[in-house]
């Protein structure tokens, strides 16, 4: 009985994350089409229909999937057969796995059993996400190198260079957050953001680490390889690392970018926007700074927290889409210069300043 329950809980935790991220990744194609359309005074894709029902173009992701699956799966004669087939799977796998340690709610207690709402409880959650994000570029490099195409190789080389310059900035900017909240465990970081500064301001990462938030966001967008940092793809010049791919394998690369966008928005939400924290909501209910209280049941509190996480994640995705459809692409050298001469030094500066502030006014330990 207990074993079955444990298994069920573990399965449920993983299933929530899997379904959340995968479905969101599929829906992102719809969001991308529709949001860009509305931003540009257009209507957007709305022709796919089942028996005349169009549901605002929501069937287009489905139609896309069918199209991708039924297309010819072409492999160039000079490609490395094994690595060429493996690359898209590696890409998607690491993008999916990265979400595992991001908490989507506080501990849920059912009949005395404590369930942390997180697919995997890791003490080094942040390092895990970073590792998965960096491993993702291996799929890209494999794809470029095994295609036997010079343009694909160029694209994957750009992806590797971009990923290194972005990863450094990501790691260095997160350091400040780790210093403020004193943990590598993402659950602890989110709990730390529940405190109130001066009695009324939630101690979210964006309040305590505004510069790190900006740097992480910029480097995170670079890590997704989407516009304005889509030099690896470089559609107008080299088509990029997936130039030889077709059918669902190409679809998986396209999917990876969306999944990485979801992961980055989940990371930003967790580290800088308070994760599942609702302002003034404690485990017992709302406790407003002006003294009013509103006690809520445990289930409702957890539901509110999960809802808050999902809402913040969606807002973040909207924002990333907004950036993607607003900014022009950085040239390769501009992206490199931004990464190494702006993001990296600034994040080091952020670490130094955070350390000094913590040393002077921080909690004495």
């Amino acid at each position, binding site marked *: 009985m207990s074993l079955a329950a444990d298994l069920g809980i573990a399965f449920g935790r993983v299933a929530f994350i899997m379904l959340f991220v995968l479905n969101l990744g599929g829906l992102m194609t719809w969001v991308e089409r529709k*949001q860009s359309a*509305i931003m*540009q005074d257009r*209507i957007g894709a709305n022709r796919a229909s089942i028996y005349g029902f169009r549901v605002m173009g929501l069937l287009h992701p489905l139609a896309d999937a069918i199209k991708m699956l039924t297309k010819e799966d072409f492999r160039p004669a000079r490609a490395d057969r094994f690595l060429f087939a493996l690359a898209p799977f590696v890409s998607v796998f690491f993008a999916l796995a990265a979400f595992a340690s991001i908490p989507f709610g506080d501990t849920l207690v059912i009949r005395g059993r404590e369930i942390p709402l997180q697919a995997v409880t890791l003490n080094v959650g942040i390092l895990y996400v970073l590792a998965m994000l960096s491993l993702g570029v291996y799929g890209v490099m494999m794809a470029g190198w095994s295609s036997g195409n010079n343009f694909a190789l160029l694209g994957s080389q750009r992806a590797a260079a971009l990923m290194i310059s972005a990863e450094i900035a990501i790691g260095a900017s997160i350091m400040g957050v780790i210093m403020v909240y004193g943990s590598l465990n993402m659950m602890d970081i989110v709990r730390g953001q529940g405190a109130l500064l001066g009695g009324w301001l939630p101690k979210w990462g964006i309040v305590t680490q505004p510069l790190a938030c900006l740097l992480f966001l910029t480097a995170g967008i670079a890590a997704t390889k989407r516009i304005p940092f889509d030099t690896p793809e470089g559609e107008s010049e080299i088509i990029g690392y997936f130039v030889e791919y077709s059918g669902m394998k190409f679809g998986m690369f396209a999917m990876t970018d969306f999944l990485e966008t979801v992961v980055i928005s989940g990371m930003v939400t967790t580290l800088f926007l308070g994760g599942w924290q609702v302002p003034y909501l404690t485990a017992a209910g709302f406790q407003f700074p002006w003294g009013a209280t509103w006690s809520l049941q445990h289930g409702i509190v957890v539901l509110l927290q999960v809802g808050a996480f999902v809402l913040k994640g969606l807002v973040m995705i909207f924002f990333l889409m*907004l950036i993607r459809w*607003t900014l022009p692409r950085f040239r390769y050298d501009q992206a490199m210069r931004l990464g190494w001469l702006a993001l990296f030094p600034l994040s080091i500066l952020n670490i130094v300043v955070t350390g000094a502030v913590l040393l002077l006014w921080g909690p004495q330990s």
Partner: protein
Amino acid sequence: MKTAQRFYLREVLSGLGLTAAHFFRNMGRHIAHSLGKKDAQGAVTIQYPDERRPYSPRLRSLHRLVRREDGSPRCVACMMCETVCPAHCIYIVAEEHPNPEIEKMPRRFDIDLGKCVFCGYCVEACPEDAIRMDTGILEFSAYNRRSMIYTKEMLLALEPAERDGRPRSPVPMPADRKP
């Protein structure tokens, strides 16, 4: 470049503000439209096959041969249009008209729309006002070049467009093409 522009950030924010403003304004109009306020338009799109923009009456579209009252072509096979056509896409074979007051009539009148450049010279040249380009039909297409040749019968069957440019006749189907 100004110093402020070198930092990207301010320019990026102003750009994001512009696109976000467009997004929310259009989103509001879309919602108002779906709630019943039909004059709220969130997009400038014309959903083409379902709705068309009004065409100018001067638009040169698919040709038609004007009919006499008895249904025979008004064309007298004078070859003016065939002569003036810069693309050489008109092919006419003349024959005697049963009515002695009319000199000739075309036995064949083919237009190769694969060659036609829609200059309208044939309409200008015609002394009998027998060929016009006012059907409003733009969507003729075929799977092979042969099917782009429209015959006398197909061109005779066409009607002029409505006042707003909507075509009144369906797109003629080439004889060798199964509908």
